[in-house]
């Protein structure tokens, strides 16, 4: 079965599923949900089956490779393959899609106002799943770009048709920001292609061929900016973040989970996969600037989150702060830091999902209000809900024992290794994170019950079976991977080391290594 085109199959299944869902009659919303759920579970199953065959010790840069000519005139191939980084992000996407489908079971139904059909939403989710898998699997830069851009269309409709009162504004803002980045990336992509024509004789977009080129530093610096711009908007890095809070606040919780939990990872994934290996000299040149932006992001995001009145906006700003950590880990160019970044991407995906979904369940019980001041004392009437919320909050503040702790810790370790002051500064960020996360929990869940929660026919009931089923896997993964991160680290580290080998930055000699951590993990 090793020749089985796993990646293509995993991408095609949701695509076919979305067609089936879209062609269902409008009168059968239940069937649409059931089919979407089954399809996403099949994809998850296939992803697990593929992951089990992944060889963590392989010396090949990519596994499950497929390659067919697509547009030979431009040297474009349909080439897919995964390394450890791609694999864990595909697994993240495949895990979060069924969770959001289950969590959003009721969300779309009751929405008469946005009239967009139930089946439409679930068809879009499945299209998006296919594109997310494609974007992480592509090993041809053109193909990556195509997925990167086309992904905007389903998300745009998911925000614009199914969301809050300002959804149309948020959708346009999201689309224009992303297109801006995408178009600059297009210019850089074309530039890279022309460079490959001059260096290799015939143009190519093949990732490994492009990595093998020796681009002169000045050209690198220009092309780097084009790609970086796109990734920084997507990630989002300060100061390119302003679209995120609006998009998060106006989307359905499920949309936010996929958008922030998975899609935004494409930005940081792009940095580690494309920016560093293809433009090593430029990456080193710009590293101080990027690290500066990351640090500002960490503090700015955390500071705004500290004062936020709206839960969804709070989550968006806290994500921005977390993306600062992820970017920081990538640009300190140490094996530990980058491994930490990738772990952090997974951890952040899980904690974002937990936060948005729990908050979504809570809000659905109080007329969709996202104001923190509308809540209080919820743990008295809905202890299970409050419990899950606590897990989500703790995961967000990176409590030891949660997978996010592993990521954050490794990033900081990597930062200390390279620039001790950066590490020290970033560590201060953790304090603010703890402050806003605990403040949120305290204000919404503890204390006396907020009277408005019982007035006007609002009743806060505890989570039901479906909701618990949706949250359970996320909470479980957060804790299990927190105590036993070895499977993650074992696949990520070789891929990260390969990147660093290409970048050829000497590792600072601090004697730190991951061996202790991953072997300790595997002993358990």
């Amino acid at each position, binding site marked *: 079965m090793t020749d089985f085109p796993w990646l293509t199959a995993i991408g095609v299944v949701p695509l076919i599923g979305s067609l089936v869902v879209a062609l269902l009659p409008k009168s059968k919303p239940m069937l649409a949900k059931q089919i979407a759920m089954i399809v996403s579970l099949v994809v998850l199953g296939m992803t697990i089956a593929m992951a089990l065959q992944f060889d963590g010790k392989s010396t090949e840069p990519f596994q499950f490779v497929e390659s067919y000519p697509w547009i030979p005139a431009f040297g474009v191939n349909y080439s897919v393959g995964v390394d450890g980084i791609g694999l864990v992000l595909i697994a993240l996407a495949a895990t979060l899609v069924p969770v959001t489908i289950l969590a959003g079971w009721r969300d779309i139904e009751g929405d008469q106002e946005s009239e967009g059909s139930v089946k439409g939403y679930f068809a879009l989710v499945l299209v998006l799943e296919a594109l997310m898998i494609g974007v992480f699997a592509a090993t041809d830069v053109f193909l990556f770009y*195509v997925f990167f851009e*086309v992904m905007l269309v389903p998300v745009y409709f998911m925000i614009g048709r199914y969301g809050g009162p300002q959804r149309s504004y948020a959708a346009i803002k999201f689309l224009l920001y992303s*297109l801006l980045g995408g178009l600059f990336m*297009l*210019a850089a992509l074309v530039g890279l292609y022309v460079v490959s024509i001059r260096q290799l004789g015939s143009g190519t977009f093949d990732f490994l061929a492009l990595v093998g080129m020796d681009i002169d530093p000045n050209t690198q610096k220009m092309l780097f900016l084009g790609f970086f711009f796109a990734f920084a908007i997507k990630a989002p890095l300060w100061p390119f973040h302003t679209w995120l809070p609006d998009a998060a606040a106006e989307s359905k919780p499920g949309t936010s989970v996929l958008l922030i939990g998975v899609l935004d990872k494409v930005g940081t994934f792009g940095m580690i996969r494309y920016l560093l290996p293809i433009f090593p000299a430029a990456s080193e040149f710009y590293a101080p600037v990027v690290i500066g932006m990351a640090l500002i992001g960490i503090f700015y995001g955390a500071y705004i989150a500290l004062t936020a009145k709206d839960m969804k906006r709070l989550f968006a700003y806290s994500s921005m702060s977390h993306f600062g950590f992820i970017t920081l880990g990538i640009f300190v160019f140490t094996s530990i830091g980058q491994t930490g970044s990738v772990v952090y991407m997974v951890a952040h995906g899980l904690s974002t999902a937990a936060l948005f979904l729990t908050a979504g369940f809570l809000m659905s019980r109080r007329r969709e209000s996202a104001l923190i001041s509308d809540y209080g004392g919820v743990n008295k009437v809905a202890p299970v809900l409050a419990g899950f919320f606590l897990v989500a909050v703790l995961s967000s503040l990176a409590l030891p024992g949660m997978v996010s702790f592993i990521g954050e810790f490794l990033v900081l370790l990597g930062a200390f290794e390279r620039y001790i002051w950066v590490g020290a500064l970033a560590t201060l960020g953790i304090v603010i994170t703890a402050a806003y996360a605990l403040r949120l929990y305290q204000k919404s869940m503890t204390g006396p019950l907020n009277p408005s929660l019982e007035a006007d026919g609002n009743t806060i009931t505890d989570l039901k079976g479906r909701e618990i089923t949706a949250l359970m896997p996320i909470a479980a993964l957060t804790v299990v991977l927190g105590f036993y991160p070895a499977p993650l680290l074992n696949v990520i580290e070789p891929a990260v080391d390969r990147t660093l080998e290409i970048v050829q930055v000497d590792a600072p000699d601090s004697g730190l290594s991951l061996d202790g951590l991953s072997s300790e993990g595997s002993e358990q």
Partner: protein
Amino acid sequence: MNFTPPAIDYFALSPMIVIFAAAIVSVLVEAFAPRTIRRFLQLLIVFGALLTSAVLIVLNAGTRTVTGGGAVVIDGPALVMMGTIVVLSILGAALMAERSIDPVGDSFAARASSLPGSEDERQLTQRGYLQTEIWPLTLFAVLGMLLFVTANNLLLMFVALEIISLPLYLMTGMARRRRLLSQEASLKYFLLGVFASAFYLYGAALVYGYSGSIFFPEIAQSLTSKPSESIVVFIGMGMLIIGPLFKIGAVPFHQWVPDVYQGAPTAVVGFMAATVKVAAFGALLRILYVAFGGVRWDWDPLIWIVAVASMILGSIVALLQTDIKRLLGYSWIAQAGFILVGLAAASPAGLESTMFYVIAYGFATVGTFAVISMVRDANGEATNLAAWAGIGRKSPLVASALSLFLLGLAGIPLTSGFVSKFAVFVAAIEAGATWLVIIGVIASLIAAFFYVRIVVIMFFAEPTEQTASVVVPSAFTTISLSAGVAVTLILGIFPQPVLDMLSNAGLFLR
């Protein structure tokens, strides 16, 4: 004095001869056939001639010849352009042949010469008269376009320019509804067009005065062989290209575009927006690449200025439009700027990318105007954007088709528009015009804003009382719309066959 008639390769010219003969027959039918069977005969002639011509163009594949005493050149790029023009004309003609959308009949004035609002007009409408004069005009316009892309000398190119223009001036003024707007557009188009033609003629005279020849290859020779370059020839060249640039609608020769897009019958706009652009770019490419190919550095800055001005002005002014036809007019101006970015590369890649872009644009345009002709309210077509609110909720299929075209024009991957833009940018960067590409990228973003705005209005806005309804058309419009959708997707997902065809077409025959 002996006169030797030039040798003529009749087979190579047959695609044009068929159209010409059909146009003459079409005039005769208009004069002598009884009213009852006139429409049937005209449709038979028009579609028969266009299809025959298309087949003859395919049979001519591989022909590279200069005939008619050096006046006409049939080469790869010419055949590609001719084929595109003919196929797009079939789709455009199908839009014009539509009779089930407007309750009165077709979308053309019963008699173009009757005064708007007069008793004459009222009676004609009351009796339900429909005219078929549009058909011979269409055929003549197509003939002119085919000549325009094959002309190998300045004079034939001028004749072709006029054969294209005169029928189009008339067709612009033939709208059944909002006739004053239509006639104003027609007059404006005519007056400005005459100016452009005059510039062209003056330029041709100057170039002839310098080089002593009207044939493109000989002009090229004289430019490289004469030791001193004369300012006269460059003034001449600049005036010469005003002709095609006017037809393209590039800034600063764009003033007619929004008026004509808005005033002319929608089917006619669909036809001419798609085809005339192909023809004009074909002619411009031939003038610049063949006649002035050796002095690229003298015309490149001109094209750069025009390209930048078109991209920026077109996309910014389009932001302010509230009428969808006007908006698309300005959007066209911006698109023309993008294509000129490729043309300015003056390389084989520039030639191929320019041709790919006009092909992709042509099909998307026909489809776009097919959709516009179907969206109507009590007063005819509803072109005000306010009337489009929530159309996507009422007719998701039609709105999705239009969204596809608009996203294509905005350059989203997996549509023909993205591949076009990519090809054009590659050509430009290869030729060293990176800065032009960066301006292009910024203009693309502005352009994306108004394309997306239409999608927002259709899908995200609530339907109101003003919201128009989508009329179910007959097979004619359906075919055009489907062809537009199919080509936009195929060129976006599998562009390789067309790219192969363009690179096999080779270069211009010099």
